[in-house]
């Protein structure tokens, strides 16, 4: 190892396996011994823990006392840990997607005919509208008002049941997003 290698070792913090060779050279080279001493003095100064200015802590704490901490979580999430006490099948049943699937299945079994009629009327209306804009002539469709069908109490109840898990899912996504944003702001700044 020569003087150039020693400089490189010191500046790159080269691996330990070259250390012995470097030290052997330092032993016989006054210039490299001085380089090692200089680096030692530098690192000793660089690692020294400086004291903060006088009363720095007091000034910081005076500002801290007037500053409220941000909430890391939103209230909804504080309830979620309680769910961990339930067995897996209960937690699965409470998942928004599972709830939505269950409600839709129940609605189909219970009032599938009403939903089918509503879907058929909607498809006919859509087809007539498409035909009208493509050919310019109005198609002949039975004059059925879909709103009249949709506003029956049964269908409204089904729709409400189907929408409820969607609302829950949306609010949960919003809660997760809010928590992520809080976390994101908390970390890098």
């Amino acid at each position, binding site marked *: 190892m020569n003087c150039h290698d020693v400089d490189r070792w010191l500046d790159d913090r080269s691996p330990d396996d070259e250390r012995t060779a470097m030290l052997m050279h330092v032993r016989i080279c006054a210039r490299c011994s001085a380089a090692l001493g200089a680096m030692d003095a*530098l690192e000793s100064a660089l690692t020294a823990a400086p004291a903060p200015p006088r009363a720095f*802590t007091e000034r910081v704490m005076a*500002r801290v006392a007037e500053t409220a901490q*941000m909430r890391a979580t939103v209230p909804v999430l504080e309830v979620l840990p309680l769910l961990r006490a339930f067995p897996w099948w209960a937690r699965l049943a409470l998942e928004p997607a599972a709830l939505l699937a269950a409600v839709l299945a129940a609605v189909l079994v219970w009032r599938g005919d009403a939903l089918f009629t509503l879907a058929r009327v909607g498809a006919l209306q859509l087809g007539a509208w498409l035909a009208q804009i493509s050919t310019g002539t109005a198609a002949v469709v039975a004059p059925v008002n879909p709103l009249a069908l949709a506003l029956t109490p049964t269908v409204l109840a089904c729709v409400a049941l189907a929408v409820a898990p969607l609302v829950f899912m949306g609010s949960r996504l919003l809660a997760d997003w809010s928590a992520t944003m809080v976390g994101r702001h908390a970390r890098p700044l």
Partner: protein
Amino acid sequence: MKPWEDVIPSKSVMGAQAGPPAAGETAGPAADRAEDRDLVRLAQGGDQAAFRRLVERHGGRAHALALRILRSASDAEEVAQDAFVRAWRALPGFRGDAAFGSWLYRIVARRAFDRAAVLKGRRTRETDVEAAEELAAAASGPDPEAGERARRLERLLAELPEVPRAVVTLYYFEDRSVEDVAKTMRMPVNTVKTHLHRARAALRGAWMREDGTP
């Protein structure tokens, strides 16, 4: 004693235990990080006494980092204070992915670089001298030899550009972890290594020239 040990300084740069006494404590870095974690947990619940202890443990280094980037005592104090207040506000969301010190120094570095961009061109030679004196006094304590070393270091650091100065400072504040510095500075690891190499070479060369070594 090995044959070469007579030429190696007693606190050699090669020593495996040459790392900085983190947070100014006598315990090792691992113990300091564990204590930081406990204090952070308490402070996350709003415990101001625990946060005060964190300020005491990291205030010196946070302020020194800001001062080395900004070279202005008043701006550095403001940036360091702001960083602690921001850390306090955001602490409940701190997940502990990094050490508290790394997280704090990241806030300090970002704030200091932002401030430096605003102050660009307004820095004078007088502010450099003021900063060097302030840091030398802060680092030296009662030991006159350490004071002289600190003064020399600050004078030489002032000759470096902002980014290598921050990189080399962080490297020795963050237990010599290039990866931690890279995260703090949001730089690739190899860029940090390049800055470190150049900064160390420049500082060592200048130090040796002052000593009269070719």
